[in-house]
């Protein structure tokens, strides 16, 4: 890991969209709380959850938009929203919090407290592989020049580590919140009177929010417009419940909404603002309320990273024995391919999350329908049943092996239906090899024509 602090990695770091601004060849000194991606040198920030960072390919790229499709009661999506903001405070980034529902000051009061290394070890079980470890106290043989540098602390505000763990049962302390730099946008305060004319053909609330974001970016120098400014920093933007009726939008209310393009236009302009600045944005959208599926797919296409949450509260999956340890499913719908042809998409697709002992964990869970239906139907047929989310959407490779076994058993089954003259001789263990070619190779010679067309005499 010492290579990350040398110049060769930092040279490859380039701010997306800064082709004209920023000066060619100027090295970007490392900003706290960021690290370059190992794949394409893209600058990454943590989303607040190390488990989610791993699934997103190392973190959230600077200049991109993370869309969280809310779960039905907005419990876990607001939790991830708060993790994102808490990570920003701990790393010393500037925050911009926008909401139409609750005052952003109240949101900041409810942020979880970061866990220090020793507390974290106490909270988790033993045997977890990704604990953070203390630096060994041996003298360094190769990197001896770094021996005398001070150790990095894990305290909030001065932390330069990537990705922290948080304790949801405790609140972040007041002095840490006060020391953070943040801007707030609370919709009822900004809109005092409704204008009759909509400028930009956008919703009035969205227009105000865009102007606010653009003002913060240009005045605070996040778009590189002030090169003499002190250390560069990241702006973390969080917008809560975008698209809900509180923003004045009706895509969640009607099947054919009147302002269908308001939110998509907003997302497009927001994307433009993000690409030209050192910022990362998280928005939560109540997609389960949007009835027009075209709007949902357009919103996904305009976002970079899309994560959907599905909680088990009140759904029929809650009674399922496989899901009894978990609180919901998490779907990674989309990961961007930035500055490269490939993206670092993880192989595991069936993921569930749980909020356990104050820590949010994401784990792989086998798709449930397969296990359940196997007890009722003959083996192999369960592949044909409509399986939500797994086989036809983001299924895993294991399902194709079921197809092979199903095909092998079907031919045996069907041929048994056709040739009803004499029963199948059970000459062995009754495995697949025996039943798939009945009556063909009894004593080394072909007895009769195989398969379905064999008519018994």
């Amino acid at each position, binding site marked *: 890991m010492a290579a990350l602090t040398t110049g060769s990695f930092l040279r490859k770091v380039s701010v997306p969209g800064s082709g004209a601004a920023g000066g060619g060849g100027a090295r970007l000194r490392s900003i706290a709380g960021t690290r370059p991606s190992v794949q394409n040198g893209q600058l990454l920030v943590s989303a607040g959850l190390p488990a989610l960072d791993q699934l997103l390919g190392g973190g959230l790229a600077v200049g991109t938009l993370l869309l969280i499709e809310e779960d039905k009661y907005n419990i876990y999506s607001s939790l991830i929203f708060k993790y994102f903001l808490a990570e920003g405070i701990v790393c010393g980034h500037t925050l911009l919090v926008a909401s139409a529902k609750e005052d952003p000051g109240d949101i900041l009061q409810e942020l979880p407290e970061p866990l220090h290394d020793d507390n974290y070890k106490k909270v988790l079980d033993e045997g977890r592989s990704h604990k953070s470890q203390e630096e060994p106290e041996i003298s360094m043989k190769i990197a001896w020049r770094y021996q005398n540098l001070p150790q990095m602390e894990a305290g909030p505000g001065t932390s330069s580590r990537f990705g922290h763990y948080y304790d949801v049962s405790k609140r972040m302390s007041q002095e840490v919140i006060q020391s953070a730099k943040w801007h707030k946008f609370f919709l009822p305060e900004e809109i005092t009177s409704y204008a009759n004319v909509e400028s930009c053909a956008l919703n009035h609330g969205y227009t105000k929010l865009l102007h606010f974001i653009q003002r913060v970016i240009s005045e605070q120098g996040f778009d590189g417009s002030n090169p003499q400014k002190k250390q560069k920093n990241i702006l973390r933007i969080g917008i809560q419940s975008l698209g809900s009726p509180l923003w004045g939008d009706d895509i969640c209310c009607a099947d054919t909404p009147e302002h269908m393009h308001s939110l998509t236009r907003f997302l497009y302009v927001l994307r433009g603002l993000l690409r030209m600045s050192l910022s990362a944005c998280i928005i939560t959208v109540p997609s389960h309320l949007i009835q027009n599926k075209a709007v949902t797919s*357009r919103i996904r296409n305009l976002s970079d990273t899309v994560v959907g949450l599905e909680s088990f509260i009140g759904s029929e999956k809650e009674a399922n024995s496989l899901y009894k340890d978990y609180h919901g499913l998490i779907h990674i719908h989309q990961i961007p391919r930035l500055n490269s042809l490939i993206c670092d998409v993880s192989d595991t*697709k069936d993921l569930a999350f749980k909020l356990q002992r104050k820590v949010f964990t994401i784990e792989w869970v086998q798709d449930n329908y397969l296990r359940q239906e196997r007890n009722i139907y003959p083996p192999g047929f369960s592949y044909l049943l409509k399986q939500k989310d797994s086989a036809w959407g983001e299924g895993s490779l294991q399902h194709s092996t079921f197809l092979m076994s199903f095909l092998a058993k079907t031919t045996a089954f069907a041929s048994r239906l056709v040739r009803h003259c004499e029963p199948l001789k059970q000459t062995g263990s009754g495995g697949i090899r025996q039943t798939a070619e009945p009556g063909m190779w009894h004593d080394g010679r072909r007895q009769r024509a195989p398969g379905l067309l064999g008519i018994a005499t």
Partner: protein
Amino acid sequence: MFPELNNLLNVSPDKPEQGKFTLLCDAKTDGGFLVHHFLSFYLKANCKVCFVALLQSFSHYNIVGQKLGVNLIAARDRGQLVFFEGLKSTVEVLFGSKEQPNTLKFIRESSSDLKSLYEFVQKALTPSGDGSATSWKFPVLLVDDLSVLLSLGVEAVAVLDFIQYCRATVCCQLKGNVVALVHDSDQTEDEENAMLMNALGHQSSLILRAEGLVTGFCKDVHGQLKILRRGLLQPKSEQTRSLIYQYKIQDKSVTFFARGLSPAVL
């Protein structure tokens, strides 16, 4: 430029086809690699390219282009590439001064057509009469992508009009090519997008369709590419032929193979 795709399409940078409209579509996967392929292909073929990039920034295409062997900054400086960055222009239109030429004024107004965008393309690709020394082979218009225009409130008919005007100018008048990418969401109820895709499919002579695998995600095969050639002018000799290949995207290239014959399986 992916050499394997050139072999599959039977073209090479030395003798590219002219006067064609190629439609790229993707369903359930990301078809952006096709855009990178055509961009580097036409730059290497010494054509004048007008690239309308609505969804990504210039540096994104530049970095990928460097992996594929073309330098977009150099191409832009010598006049071979005219790059229209939609995101940057939008921000300038909305937050900048009002005197700037607004190619994207449809963002500001609720119902507008793409006439200003077409005029931009026309000005970029029509050879100027000042007798400049460098002569390019033929002009090419690349659009990435058209579905974003639908999200911005432009009607599908207006997008079709825009493509019609561009085809008339670029393909017929200037004997160039037009390549456009459209996202296909066949399982959702996006009727405007479906109408746009069908109409463009009938106008195109070559359709490249990148789809995700039906059985779900696979690490070694990233998707399936359908190549559909439509013979427009010769009804009896060139019939509609369709080829299907599977592909895997790597860091600097894309490998294509016949269905089921992925190198990971063999």
